[in-house]
């Protein structure tokens, strides 16, 4: 599809989507009225910059129904991401929304070489997380035999992979690496399995990691990008060129902005990625700020696809971390500490060891919890760990340290030490 045709299609859809949102979502109507923008002002993609941004905070504020654009009886599904202070972001889907999303995931599978002759093993988590459901639906659309494995139980994953001749593996890159290592430990060689491709996303990874996974499993490894707010995985996907991800531009418009000023930057500039949905019914988003920093490219791709490409996220414009595929904000950790009566003086240390993220939190103990035996402290550590797990969905390792032993800095405290940077991972 030539670029002009894509823009024309996007413009037609955008006009409709903006009107639909304005008419059906009070929250948006207020935002637009506040900015003095009417649906009639949006005539094409060139007018997109006139619309206000919507941020994750808006999604939390509007929780749960504030951004819903259709009657609940038209919705068939919800998915959710973890959020701060107990508030999650909940996204709603109509059947058409699910179909559009699955179509996007199907494109990702086809771009990785998938056909109806493939056996697609989905070991992303199933449930509120979009990873499992998205690739599962995409695999159905392609007509591949779908193995709905969900995450974990590596021995069973390997047994099914070997016995049922899986050809495409869908999971997080770190889990793919782990499966590769386990296969090797069990004495399998890369050529012993029937896998040909893997579709890996939901967490940051490097080209070096890609090579390791490709070598250990004997496959080609493809990146996939998405956000629950927009649908889930499949907003963008990698093709055989393995150089950037094509954005599904018939369903989403991508912009890159200066995160400080909000100004739209020309294609090719590094900035914050902003998405506008074009076909969504239940949970449409106009100019949603992803906080992911990346670069867009219109350069011709050897695969023949003309959809614009995005780099892997090169960083974040906020303090969100992605640990073991889960979004974690320091403010969530702070909230748990305050709830449990600890001083909000802490240090988060993230690293990657053997392709798995490690997650440690140093917390100053309460003076009254210290006595002459270690068991008092270790039991408090366990208690705090459970509280963190309940909030974050993943288990950190808690280390209680002496009161006042964590340096209090004058200005912005260094709360996060992310050692994954040394591995070249963009976090």
């Amino acid at each position, binding site marked *: 599809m030539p670029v002009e045709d894509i823009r024309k299609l996007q413009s037609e859809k955008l006009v409709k989507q903006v009107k639909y949102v304005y008419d059906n979502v009070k929250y948006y109507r207020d935002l637009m009225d506040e900015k003095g923008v009417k649906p009639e002002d949006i005539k094409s993609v060139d007018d997109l910059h006139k619309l206000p941004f919507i941020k994750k905070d808006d999604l939390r504020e509007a929780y749960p129904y504030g951004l819903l654009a259709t009657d609940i009886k038209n919705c068939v599904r919800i998915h959710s991401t973890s959020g701060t202070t107990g508030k999650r972001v909940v996204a709603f889907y109509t059947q058409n929304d699910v179909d559009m999303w699955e179509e996007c995931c199907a494109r990702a599978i086809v771009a990785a070489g998938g056909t109806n002759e493939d056996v697609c093993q989905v070991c992303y988590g199933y449930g509120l997380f979009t990873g499992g459901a998205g690739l599962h639906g995409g695999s159905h659309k392609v007509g591949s035999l779908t193995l709905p494995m969900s995450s974990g139980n590596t021995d069973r994953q390997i047994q099914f992979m070997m016995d049922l001749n899986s050809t495409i593996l869908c999971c997080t890159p770190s889990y793919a690496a782990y499966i590769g290592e386990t296969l090797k430990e069990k004495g399998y060689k890369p050529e012993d399995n029937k896998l040909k491709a893997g579709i890996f996303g939901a967490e940051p990874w490097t080209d070096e990691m890609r090579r390791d996974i490709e070598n250990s499993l004997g496959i080609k490894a493809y990146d996939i990008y998405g956000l629950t707010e927009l649908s889930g995985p499949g907003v963008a996907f990698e093709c055989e060129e393995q150089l950037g991800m094509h954005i599904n531009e018939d369903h989403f418009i991508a912009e890159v902005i200066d995160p400080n000023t909000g100004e739209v930057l020309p294609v090719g500039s590094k900035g914050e990625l902003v998405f506008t949905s074009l076909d969504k019914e239940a949970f449409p988003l106009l100019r949603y700020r992803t906080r992911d920093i990346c670069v867009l490219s219109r350069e011709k791709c050897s695969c023949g696809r003309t959809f614009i490409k995005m780099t892997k996220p090169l960083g974040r414009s906020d303090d969100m971390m992605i640990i073991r595929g889960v979004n974690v904000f320091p403010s969530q950790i702070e909230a748990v500490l305050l709830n449990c009566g600890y001083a909000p003086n802490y240090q988060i240390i993230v690293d990657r060891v053997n392709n798995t993220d490690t997650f440690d939190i140093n917390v100053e103990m309460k*003076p009254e919890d*210290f*006595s*002459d*035996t*270690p068991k008092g*402290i*270790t039991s408090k550590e366990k208690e705090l760990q459970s509280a963190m797990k309940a909030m974050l969905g993943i288990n950190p390792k808690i*280390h209680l*340290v*002496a*009161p006042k*032993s964590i340096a209090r800095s004058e200005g912005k405290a260094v709360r996060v030490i992310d050692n994954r940077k040394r591995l070249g991972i963009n976090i």
Partner: protein
Amino acid sequence: MAVKQLSIFVENKEGKLVTITDSIAKAGIDIRAMSVADTQEFGIFRLIVTDPEKAKEALESSGCFVSITQVVGVSIPDEPGSLAKVVNILARYNINIEYMYAFITVSKKNASVVLRVADNEAAEKILIENGINLLKESDITSM
């Protein structure tokens, strides 16, 4: 009657024990007994010293985290069977020993042992009734 023990939180980091022992040395305080409880992450250094209050102050001013715990000190003849006798008495009365350790200083005749139990007073009463000598703070200072 109970004896004061210093419990010092020690992170498993280089130089932590140096800070502790140095600050006690500078304050002119003698260590009479010690033990370490350790986990993978941290340790608790327990000390019986000649002047616990002064030691606590010195340690805190050098950035250590200290608490004072009451423990039972006993002085027993330095001969086979002495410790067994003490332990047997406590066992008979269902008093659990959480931990115990010996003094560094030994006289020719006697050995001294620190006992940590849940109820100091109960343990002390029983030990006295059974003819075991208990240590007082003043005994430690004059050791």
